[in-house]
């Protein structure tokens, strides 16, 4: 296996899928000549030409809707959001067209499209460029939502997303683009809707996705030193959710902490928590706790931004509390 970055893994996924299927094309702001705002599409314009790697004007609603129409007509667009902050401009087409077309056409018109790009918070990007919007997409029936946390998952999930016949929202982590990991070469697919236990443990289950998986794993290392073994479950796909893997972990540990970068109110963790209490209530030995971003727009100042984001200390504190080991 090769050690490559998360960014390179995504690039490989697109390159391989574009070679495999001539209907796949990439469209977005700066994806071509500029090689991608985050260099995820590096080299693709040279390799596939301007018909299949299209620089768009700054027009999220327009090019996302164009992508939906192209998908309805038989193509398989990959629409890049320079960042998911800008996907808000395209929400009408994502929610009212992409997600609902199959249903309101009575099953006639699937929309096989991937909407991908970086999301998440950090880098002092302040209120409008630093936020986690995954719960917005998870709310909508008709959409699938994936959020890879490792280079291997990034490649495997994106390749599966391109082959899926539904609209898949793939929210990458801006701060993970440079991270390295082992990635199988060639055909590597991670099925949508399949979680992975990133670390096994007996004392408590910590459910985290995207960048928060790494926060949870760091917390696990620290907790192990005090004899607490947590199990880190990465759903990888937030919709459809792999509830079986989660329930199996809950049945084993009986205690749950859910970590997410987004806001707490109506967040992804709220949904996961509801699902767990409904199906595995009798296995729970403590209330489910959530560690989330703070319920405020993202501030600019470094110290305030740091306070907003879930970190290792807050995860450790939550684990202590579900184990009733507070000081």
């Amino acid at each position: 296996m090769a050690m490559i970055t998360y960014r390179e893994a995504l690039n490989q996924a697109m390159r391989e899928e574009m070679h495999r299927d001539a209907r796949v094309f990439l469209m977005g702001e700066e994806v071509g000549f500029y090689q991608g705002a985050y260099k995820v599409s590096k080299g693709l314009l040279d390799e596939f030409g301007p018909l299949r790697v299209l620089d768009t004007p700054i027009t999220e609603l327009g090019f996302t809707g164009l992508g939906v129409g192209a998908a309805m007509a038989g193509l398989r667009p990959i629409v890049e959001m320079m960042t998911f902050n800008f996907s808000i401009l395209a929400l009408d087409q994502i929610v009212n067209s992409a997600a609902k077309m199959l249903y309101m056409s009575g099953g006639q018109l699937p929309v096989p499209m991937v909407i991908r790009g970086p999301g998440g918070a950090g880098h002092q990007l302040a209120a409008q460029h630093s936020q986690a919007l995954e719960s917005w997409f998870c709310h909508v029936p008709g959409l699938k939502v994936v959020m890879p946390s490792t280079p291997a998952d990034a490649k495997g999930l994106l390749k599966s997303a391109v082959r899926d016949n539904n609209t898949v929202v793939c929210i990458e982590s801006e701060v993970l683009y440079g991270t390295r990991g082992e990635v199988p070469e060639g055909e590597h697919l991670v099925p949508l809707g399949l979680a992975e236990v990133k670390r096994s443990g007996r004392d408590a289950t910590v459910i985290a996705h995207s960048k928060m998986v790494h926060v949870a794993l760091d917390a696990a290392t620290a907790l192990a030193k005090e004899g607490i073994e947590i199990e880190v479950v990465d759903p990888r796909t937030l919709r459809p959710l792999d509830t079986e893997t989660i329930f199996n972990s809950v049945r084993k540990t009986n205690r749950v902490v859910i970590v997410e970068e987004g806001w707490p109110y109506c967040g992804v963790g709220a949904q996961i928590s509801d699902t767990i209490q409904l199906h595995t209530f009798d296995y729970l030995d403590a209330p489910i706790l959530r560690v989330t971003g703070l319920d405020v727009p993202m501030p600019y100042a470094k110290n305030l931004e740091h306070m907003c984001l879930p970190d290792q200390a807050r995860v450790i504190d939550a684990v202590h509390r579900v184990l009733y080991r507070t000081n």
Partner: protein
Amino acid sequence: MEHSDTATSAAHSTEAQGNGASTLTQVDRARRTDPAVLKDLLEKMLLVRRFEEKSAELYTLGKIGGFCHLYIGQEAVGVGAISTLSPDDYILCSYREHGHALVRGLDPGEIMAELCGKKSGVSKGKGGSMHLFDKTKGFMGGHGIVGGQIPLATGFAFASKYLKQHAVTLCFFGEAAVNIGSFHESLNLAALWKLPVVYICENNRFGMGTPVERASSLYDLSGKACAYNMARAYVDGMDVLAMRELVMEAVERARGDNAPMLIEARTYRFMGHSMSDPVHGHYRTKAEVEEQKRHDPIKMFTSTLETLGVINHDDVAELDKKVREIVEDAVAFSERSEEPDPMEIDTDVYTS
């Protein structure tokens, strides 16, 4: 897509192209048109009119629910425009699309069944009046958000060019849609990437209850194309032959040169915005509606054909009888149809 450095001369012009300002009368145009085509156009307009009258009746009886936007008064636009298409071409519409669907050849019974929420409807009863689809006929909806179909249509045109299929996409929308972002973003992309799409703005004068003069700073709506260096034209949307001839030119250009065009069809809606809205009231007077009905596209066209001797009074009665039977059969089909199976509630959310 190639980026065009040299747009066509037509696109450069800020003058409206086409026949909006033409001095040709409908009689002149009819003289140069195949009589069989003329009769077919009249039959289709009559079919749409009778179908919509029946839809109004069924809505009043509570058999059609939700929002129901009728096409009465605007028939010449859809009939003239769609008569120019090939079977492989695409059509996308707003929620006022019953007429376009009928003209494209969707089964009238299945359309009526959809309006009535039946399983035999074109969208299995899941779409309703605003969401008619028939993929086999290139009829790609039926879209409920003002302007929402415009980027989609642009995407169909993109796909045609990408796949070298030579299909043309007709995109219909009301005049109120020209103020929304999706319209402008789409026109820019279509002109920039030279996509084979014809945008047809059906200016029926009112966005619900707001006259166009209170909604758009530019009254000559085809002029919106100038911002995108796109060819444009306006046309008398009450004249089915003027409509047909202009769209024929636009479709040929789109198919041959991948050149998009914006057409403003000046028409008038004889009914309220939807069946829940008044025909007249605060926003327009009864006298205005009555005055506009003097330009009824069907009456005008009938008179033209009678003047030329293409048809006589009896022929018209015969055509009307024929379409009334089609509509009655459509209603009977819908009445016989079952409601959707409750098991269908969560199918078609995702596909495998």
